[in-house]
């Protein structure tokens, strides 16, 4: 057992010190895995098909003749390839995943089971509506609960993810302004701490984006915002709770001021988990808010989606929402309002955002989650999420700079900065060292308003024991960063890969695998 240079505690031997390199490059359970292009063959298949002719007689003269270059593997090799790859991933199932603003909570497996019921998984989106009443009822029930939980008037279910939902809300605002003959309102105000999707969305819809400054306590500067309002302002996009993990205390006043000036309030609902069941955005004057079903309502992130971003709308914006949507009649029958019925029923709709009806597989999961928790469980979700974040904040504020800790409790996430780290040490070094401790790092360098931001969102599905272990690890890492432990600069030491060269990747992009040049040519 060696003692590391900074001397805090014994560490395990780093890279198999004293061991010879292995023949395979593997290290016991840490297995190297080649690409399918290096192990597969275009002649191999892991699928058996029925016998039968495979005529090509109606393809015109377009039969594909040239090789495609798609390798196949047998089922056993396929299972092994992806199982080996899976073991190089960190995941919620392995441990705490404190990625701020991403709400990495436990994904209940009942949700997965329900989404796979044949009645939901094996149904075509264009089946006659008589044959899909159960699917439409899932959409309709979920829509009802989302409206109920947010205190809003309507909901657009079809947006495919949070950013798509933002676009939906902004397009509703644009359509409402045009209907009022105020299409000249071109400015959308966005706080500096906003997610990047907010300005990107507003710009896509043709708006000019202007920043709103923050107050020293990490919130939107109400006076600066009010002063900027005027006949050219279309909307304000606010995240609440915001990306510093703080509740925007003045949101109602902001909404009133924006409405008085003829604008609309868009709320980024990425952080709804902190207030679900305790606060209804509709009571704060919000006109549109997307809800990330893959955050608050526990549908799995899947390594980058699929998400789902329904948008709840105020009475003023509901008429402008997208197609299609469900409508429940007195007898319980549910119809779909699509292009053909829109002129009678929804003439101001801004149109369709996607083929079909939205992320049905996510709707079944989210509805399952809501029914499992119920009104009492959802309220407990918000309370435990906020309790866990404050516990992390207060357990670490003596060792890490917490820029807003003095102003009161945080909501669902705690923010720290890299102030006080030794010269040359920054957030990334602490984050990579956390990897060695067996944790996924927190969100790094976001929001931009805090220097070297570390945004920690533990979520409500972590036990106190898990939090205590994480707090111990982050404390140790912070102390090493403050002392300038050089081993942090080369962390992670125990991950499947050490730090990757992102500059090289961007300078000479290699985005697809190519057959290596034959050895003889390469030698020339």
């Amino acid at each position: 057992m060696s003692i590391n240079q900074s001397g805090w505690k014994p560490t395990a031997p780093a890279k198999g010190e004293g061991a010879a390199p292995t023949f395979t490059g593997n290290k016991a359970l840490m297995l190297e895995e080649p690409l399918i292009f290096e192990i597969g063959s275009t002649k191999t298949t892991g699928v058996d098909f029925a016998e039968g002719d495979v005529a090509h007689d109606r393809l015109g003269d377009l039969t594909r003749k040239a090789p495609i270059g798609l390798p196949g593997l047998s089922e056993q090799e396929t299972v092994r390839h992806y199982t080996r790859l899976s073991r190089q991933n960190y995941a919620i199932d392995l441990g705490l995943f404190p990625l701020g603003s991403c709400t990495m909570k436990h994904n209940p497996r009942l949700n997965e089971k329900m989404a796979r019921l044949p009645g939901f998984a094996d149904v075509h989106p264009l089946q006659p509506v008589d044959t899909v009443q159960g699917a439409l009822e899932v959409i309709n029930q979920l829509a009802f609960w989302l409206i109920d939980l947010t205190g809003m008037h309507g909901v657009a279910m079809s947006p495919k993810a949070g950013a798509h939902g933002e676009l939906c809300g902004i397009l509703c605002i644009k359509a409402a302004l045009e209907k009022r003959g105020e299409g000249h309102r071109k400015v959308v105000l966005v706080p500096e701490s906003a997610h990047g999707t907010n300005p990107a969305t507003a710009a896509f819809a043709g708006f000019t984006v202007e920043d709103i400054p923050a107050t020293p306590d990490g919130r939107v500067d109400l006076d600066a915002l009010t002063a900027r309002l005027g006949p050219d302002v279309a909307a304000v996009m606010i995240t609440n709770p915001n990306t510093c993990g703080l509740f925007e205390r003045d949101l109602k006043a902001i909404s009133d001021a924006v409405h008085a000036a003829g604008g609309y309030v868009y709320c980024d609902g990425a952080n709804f988990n902190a207030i679900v069941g305790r606060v209804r955005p509709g009571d704060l004057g919000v006109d549109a808010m997307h809800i990330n079903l893959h955050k608050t309502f526990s549908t799995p992130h899947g390594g980058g989606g699929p998400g789902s971003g329904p948008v709840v709308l105020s009475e003023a914006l509901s008429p402008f929402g997208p197609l299609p949507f469900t409508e429940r009649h007195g007898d319980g029958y549910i119809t779909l309002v699509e292009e053909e019925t829109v002129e009678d029923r929804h003439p101001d709709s801004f149109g369709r955002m996607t083929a079909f009806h939205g992320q049905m597989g996510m709707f079944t999961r989210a509805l399952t989650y809501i029914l499992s928790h119920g009104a009492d469980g959802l309220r407990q979700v918000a309370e435990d999420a906020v309790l866990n974040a404050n516990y992390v904040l207060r357990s670490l504020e003596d060792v890490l700079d917490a820029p807003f800790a003095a102003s009161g409790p945080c909501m669902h996430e705690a923010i720290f900065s890299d102030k006080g780290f030794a010269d040359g040490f920054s957030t990334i070094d602490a984050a990579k060292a956390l990897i060695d401790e067996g944790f996924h790092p927190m969100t790094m360098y976001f929001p931009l308003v805090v220097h070297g931001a570390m945004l920690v969102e533990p979520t409500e599905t972590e036990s106190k024991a898990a939090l205590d272990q994480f707090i111990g690890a982050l404390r140790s890492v912070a102390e090493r960063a403050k002392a300038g432990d050089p081993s942090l600069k080369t962390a992670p030491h125990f991950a499947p890969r050490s730090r990757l060269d992102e500059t090289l990747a961007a300078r000479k992009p290699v985005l697809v695998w190519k057959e290596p040049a034959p050895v003889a040519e390469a030698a020339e």
Partner: protein
Amino acid sequence: MRYLPLTPADRTEMLSVIGAPSIDALFADVPKEARLDGPIRGLPLHASELAVERHMTALGRKNTVAGEVPFFLGAGAYRHHVPASVDHLIQRGEFLTAYTPYQPEIAQGTLQMLFEFQTQVARMLGTDVANASMYDGSTACWEAIGMARRITKRAKAILSGGLHPHYVSVAKTMAKYTGDALDVALPELSAETDIDALIAKIDADTSCVVVQYPDILGRIADLTPLADACHANKALLIAVVTEPVAMGAIRAPGEMDADIVVGEGQSIGVGLQFGGPYVGLFGCKEKYVRQMPGRLCGETVDADGRRGFVLTLSTREQHIRREKATSNICTNSGLCALAFSVHMTLLGEAGLRRLAGLNHAGACRAAARLAKVPGVRVVNHTFFNEFTVDLGREARPIVRRLADEGVLAGVSLGRLYPGVAALENGLVVAVTETVTDEDIEALATALEGALEGALAA
């Protein structure tokens, strides 16, 4: 509550560490008038797994399951057999419960899979590169139109009448706000595609031509003359593939010099799921890569010189460029991309070609059988696994009637193009490897009955 591990004793102890008298004190920043007292009204209280499963199962039973009846729907979503190992692998917690791979040292599993996916997609579509997925085919399509505007600095897009009407609707919605001018057309119930008409429309203001392959009626045409005409006018050709299994049988659009090829990847690995989540495919020529939307995974090396993968070229993206990003897309369709990639790996080229051949053979048999039904005319000369029939009378009520008889006959053009009289007799019929000869016979017999009945009436 089974998902919440804190005990009452934990909560009390944690509050004392925090120094707060109560949970309510942590919500002190919420103005009083915005606080809800007690559980939200209307919602029932928490429920057991058993109770929730009962509720959801009852809802699921109200739907007609595609696999339990003769089933012929396509038009942008196709029912294929997905091997059992696909769903097993995507449910591994390390894939299912991971986030976007922002920390590449502990996300090599997802990243290597995405690199393999990108390569598989590029090879299938015949493009140089492909991205790590979009939401679905329809949103990939309008992102491609926007990309063509940025590249050509022109804003007139010509959309083929053969493009899926939902994709056209999405493009129309977006064009209202982006300033693109769209030239759109309806399809004609004929064997010929509108390639010649598209070529005639191209001019010096054209940013791109968007053409579906095979198109909404199932027709296939050589895209090479269209690509040449686009390039002669410095416009781009965007090809849309809604049935990627077709790439195992017919030439790839990239091979015919399309500049951007987008697609709906649902057919491979993902399943019907009532329309989502699906997976958008997005490939293009290498010279346009910096104008692409969405995530890209690239190869690099780690500090010890070992091969590894990272998300790259992120200076195109919203989290870096904010209002100057190429797209606002963030979360995309990672797990569906995994399902696609696993299924594609199981198939391999040999399997994909065999699968495509079986689909085409089944469609040929179905077309021949339906052509014998009195009153039915097969519209297509060419098709892959989907073709259109003209029933000589409005197809939509016939589809509803056949559904009552337990046959899901296809997608009526009346559903896709409501109010367009010239198309209302059309029925789009898809035949995949899941359709048996008995199913085809059931469809033909039911159609005979319905058309006879209609004649008698």
